[in-house]
């Protein structure tokens, strides 16, 4: 008899938006399915790495916070991402660190004060059925995770009972700050060469603010209006980070849950590492844009990967 098969967290409160995420859904664009995946991939990866999980192990992504779980088994969790109060049985605990959990422990994540996406990883990952090669939940498509839906109170989230694991944390200076001024590097492309140079200059010279329309699909910004003379365009494939300029001239940065095709002109696409930070922003935050080439983007990505691999975790003394 396997008495571990019932190991789970009971969801007492699911907060504002809580979804299962893994690295995302790939090679399904021909069906019209988007990628999904963690809004802040960097914070997601750290949650799994603090647990020595494979990078693709399913985690919970929590937008804004407000999650309460009760465990029925022994396990280890790690919380990364936005700065939010964490308590285990009422005791304040650090985030960007792993913690041991025992049966009946109550894990409570309050609301984020810096950033807005929080990741809760568990040893060996959440046990959840894949759809189209991924557990990532895209609510708009009703695909992935728990029947394509966000997680709700009363659900039991299956996990694996695990023996005591060493606990880790990140060094203070390796923890990202979500309050620094944000400049989004844009790999120029798509219809970039068809925009008037004055409009391009305006786009890169002005500050933009996050509007009240921002979610996992995309961030609508407000600021200097950018005009394009592009009148006729056929819908085409949209990659992650694409910056659309609709007729009202207010840019939209498209993210994980974007539509796969669309017909608005695009000026290029935000570098993935910067997009992670944008996805931690909320209404009223300000951003700037800076143009870079695809070659420069590749250098940044290779350096970032090397740095990620070199970064050492600290063992937490028990």
């Amino acid at each position, binding site marked *: 008899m396997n008495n571990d098969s019932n190991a789970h967290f009971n969801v007492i409160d699911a907060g504002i938006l809580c979804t299962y995420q893994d690295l995302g859904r790939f090679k399904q*664009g021909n*069906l019209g399915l988007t990628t999904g995946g963690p809004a802040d991939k960097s914070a997601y990866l750290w949650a799994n790495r603090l647990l020595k999980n494979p990078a693709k192990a399913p985690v919970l992504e929590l937008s804004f916070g407000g999650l309460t779980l009760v465990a029925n088994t022994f396990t280890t969790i790690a919380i990364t991402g936005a700065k939010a109060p964490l308590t285990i049985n009422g005791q304040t605990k650090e985030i960007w660190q792993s913690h041991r959990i025992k049966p009946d422990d109550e894990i409570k994540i309050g609301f984020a004060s810096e950033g807005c996406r929080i990741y809760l990883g568990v040893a060996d990952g959440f046990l959840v059925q894949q759809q189209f090669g991924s557990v990532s939940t895209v609510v708009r498509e009703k695909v992935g995770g728990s029947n394509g839906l966000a997680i709700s109170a009363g659900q039991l989230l299956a996990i694996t009972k695990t023996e005591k694991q060493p606990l880790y944390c990140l060094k203070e200076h390796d923890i990202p700050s979500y309050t620094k001024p944000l400049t989004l590097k844009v790999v120029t492309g798509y219809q970039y060469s068809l925009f008037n140079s004055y409009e391009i200059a305006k786009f890169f010279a002005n500050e933009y603010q996050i509007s009240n329309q921002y979610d996992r699909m995309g961030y609508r910004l407000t600021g200097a209006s950018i005009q394009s003379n592009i009148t006729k365009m*056929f819908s085409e*494939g949209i990659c992650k980070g694409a910056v659309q300029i609709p007729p009202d001239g207010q840019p939209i940065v498209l993210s994980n849950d974007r539509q796969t095709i669309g017909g608005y002109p695009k000026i290029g696409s935000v570098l*993935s590492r910067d997009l992670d930070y944008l996805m931690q922003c909320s209404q009223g935050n300000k951003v700037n844009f800076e143009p870079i080439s*695809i*070659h420069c983007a590749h250098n940044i990505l290779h350096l970032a990967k090397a740095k990620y691999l070199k970064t050492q975790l600290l063992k937490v003394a028990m």
Partner: protein
Amino acid sequence: MPQITKPSRKAVRIEVAGEDALIIYLGDVIDKNISKTIAQLKNRLIEELSDCLVDLIPSYVSLLVIFDPLISDYYAVKQSIIKHLSSDFTEAKTNNNVIELPVYYSPESGPDLKLIAKTSGLSIDEVIKIHQEKTYQVFAIGFAPGFAFLGEVDARIATPRLATPRAKVPKGSVAIADQQTAIYPEQSPGGWNLIGLCPLPLFEPNAKPHIPYQVGDSVKFIGISKARFLTLGGQL
């Protein structure tokens, strides 16, 4: 056998789309042959790029190639694309499937038939007949899972989108927007003109194939009676 020609060098452009994506434009007008070339190029690049390929998104005149920039780079991916663009497309086997889809056309299942008849000056029966006469090309799949953009609709029944989109378009609705036609695979909001209902599932997450068509295929609509619609599992 449809004539598939090598895309002319002049019309073809490869642009950067993002850090992990290049977009290939194969023309600047909607054309069945371009659509078929895109479908073929897509299949070739699946084999060619294998390891570094993340996704391929075909559309009307373009193919978006998404790759892993930590495995490959701009030059290598572009070179692979150029290699396949300069090869001959006539010899390759084309997927020219014609998918027949049953539709229950009626004012009951297609509440905008009356409007289309009124604006076109045709009778409802004529609108229904004209919609079935053509074999439509699948130009793109997107908007929602399994939502196929089909074209081109006979100019006589082409109708602009509704001024105010419906909050709920029923699952299986067959619709027209300008010279495009489509079927809504799931209930969703939508602004297209509804002319009938298809009783077959068009997006099945738990069955294969998940959708009955691919970009480059053709679709033919076959009118059916209400009784047949209900027998096939349709719901009103």
